């Protein structure tokens, strides 16, 4: 089975006068996997995901989605329907004058019939708990609701891969938790998820973890492997998750440590 997403020797920079933003990226992703990419601001993680749906083109190397290369512009239409992307600031993604209109935006673009569009929007909005707000202008939504609307707009297009780029950094903890629950639900329903975040506490729900620093991938493995060896984080300029730090400290005293899994975000 072909990889859902594959990066082969990808290097990227915005300008030939500037430094490389991404260096020697080799990455593959399988169907149904939840990948979390973690790194500080400026590590290149947002740039990396923008290469997946063709918003940016690699300077060197090749990116392919379900075998289709992003450098071939004829593939972009299909790729962007297969790979849905939720951007960091929900405010700057919402185009419609009402919740319903924004959810249907992508559908009208891909030529879905009005009746089909309406039924898809209804099911997606009901799934996310926004159906009662369907005629509300986006200005009157709370931060969490706006983020959910952004997700709705992407889900309505029925993608197979969903990229969630730093969508909880500006939200309050309650809304952030709701978004995480939605992501877990999507993962259970078989979507391939790529989560980009700078918050190390959020790594535990993922199947796979990639740690980036200065454009390079420093670690590619499971979150449990990373938690067992905290220099994965410190070598990449990140503070390890809280439970990992405390466990390391307790270990120094030779104490029996609680398993990291107990502090997995969202599992209490």
């Amino acid at each position, binding site marked *: 089975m072909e990889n859902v997403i594959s990066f082969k020797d990808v290097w990227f920079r915005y300008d030939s006068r500037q430094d490389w933003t991404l260096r020697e990226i080799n990455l593959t992703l399988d169907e149904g996997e939840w990948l979390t990419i973690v790194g*500080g*601001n400026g590590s290149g993680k947002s740039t990396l995901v923008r290469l997946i749906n063709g918003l940016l083109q690699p300077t060197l190397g090749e990116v392919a989605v379900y075998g289709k290369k992003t450098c071939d512009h004829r593939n972009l239409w299909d790729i962007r329907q297969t790979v849905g992307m939720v951007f960091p600031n929900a405010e700057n993604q919402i185009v419609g004058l009402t919740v319903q209109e924004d959810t249907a935006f992508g559908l009208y673009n891909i030529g879905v019939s009005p009746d089909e569009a309406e039924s898809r929007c209804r099911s997606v909005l009901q799934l996310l708990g926004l159906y009662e707000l369907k005629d509300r202008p986006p200005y009157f939504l*709370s*931060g*969490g609701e706006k983020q959910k609307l952004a997700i709705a707009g992407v889900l309505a297009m029925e993608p197979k891969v969903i990229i969630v780029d730093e969508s909880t*950094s*500006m*939200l*309050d*903890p*309650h*809304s*952030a*938790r709701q978004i995480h629950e939605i992501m877990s639900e999507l993962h259970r329903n078989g979507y391939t998820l790529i989560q980009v975040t*700078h*918050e*190390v*506490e959020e790594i535990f729900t993922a199947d796979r973890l990639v740690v980036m620093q200065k454009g390079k991938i420093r670690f590619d493995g499971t979150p449990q492997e990373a938690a067992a060896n905290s220099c994965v984080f410190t070598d990449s*300029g*990140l*503070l390890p*998750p*809280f*439970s990992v730090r*405390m466990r390391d*400290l*307790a270990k120094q*005293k*030779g*104490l*029996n440590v*609680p398993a990291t899994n*107990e*502090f997995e975000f969202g599992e*209490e």
Partner: protein
Amino acid sequence: MDIVLEDVSCMLAARTPFNAKAIDRISLHVPAGQFVAMMGPTGSGKTTLGQLMGGLILPQSGAVRIGPYRVHKKSDRLRLWKTIGFLFQFPEHQVIEDTVFNHFGARLHRLSTRREWVAEQVNQTMEAVGLCFSQFKDRSPFQISGGELRRIALAGVLVTEPKILILDEPTAGLDNWERSRVLSYLKQVHNERKMTVLYMTHRLEEALEYADRILVLDHGQLYADFHPCNIRDHWQRLERIGFVKTPLLRFIDSLEERSANKLLESVYKEEQLISFITTLSRKEL
């Protein structure tokens, strides 16, 4: 300079169909030099309260007094604004001069016109927030983003040595290192200059770690008011309005399940937890 609010109510967009009671009869007293964290779900009125306490907006009813100044009098307000530093949520709204140096210069220029003195002050403040003076001073703020711009805005606010500092979510969108840097600098400045700090945030970790007092707002009313060490007493109420346990609190809960150790009850900060663990001996766990 202490801050006193007496039965203050504030409505946003009054007399239009969008009016909403942002602040509902709040009375509050913040003594000088306190580090207060203001928390609450979105829409609870945190930002409005911060702006009220800074004299940026006027309440519909009630009185706000900051030190000797009454917010209702315009002349008092103008004098008040000289001693208040306000950091907005988005530094792009604040740092709008053509170069970083001019951003600081705009404020310092009034205190003294000696270029060397101004340059020296700017240098010191920039180094303190961890920005290289020579690298940044002539750059346009529009080319700087995120954490760096926020640090510039913070330095700009601190350079005039205000007595009251009001910060609206200063660490939103910053990664861990940048956040700890900003916060430790803030705490250092607070300790040195004994200024009153009003810190609006969603992050309970930060409030527990740095604040002397936590105020929680809900729907424009004061929902809770306590010292961080009493977080456990208030937890049930806080959970009802959407508070989520921080990793530290969850860790403590888990430790408490294993050993009912009296010392744990007073732990709410990371350094306390660290010292607790280091002083623990093998047989106790």
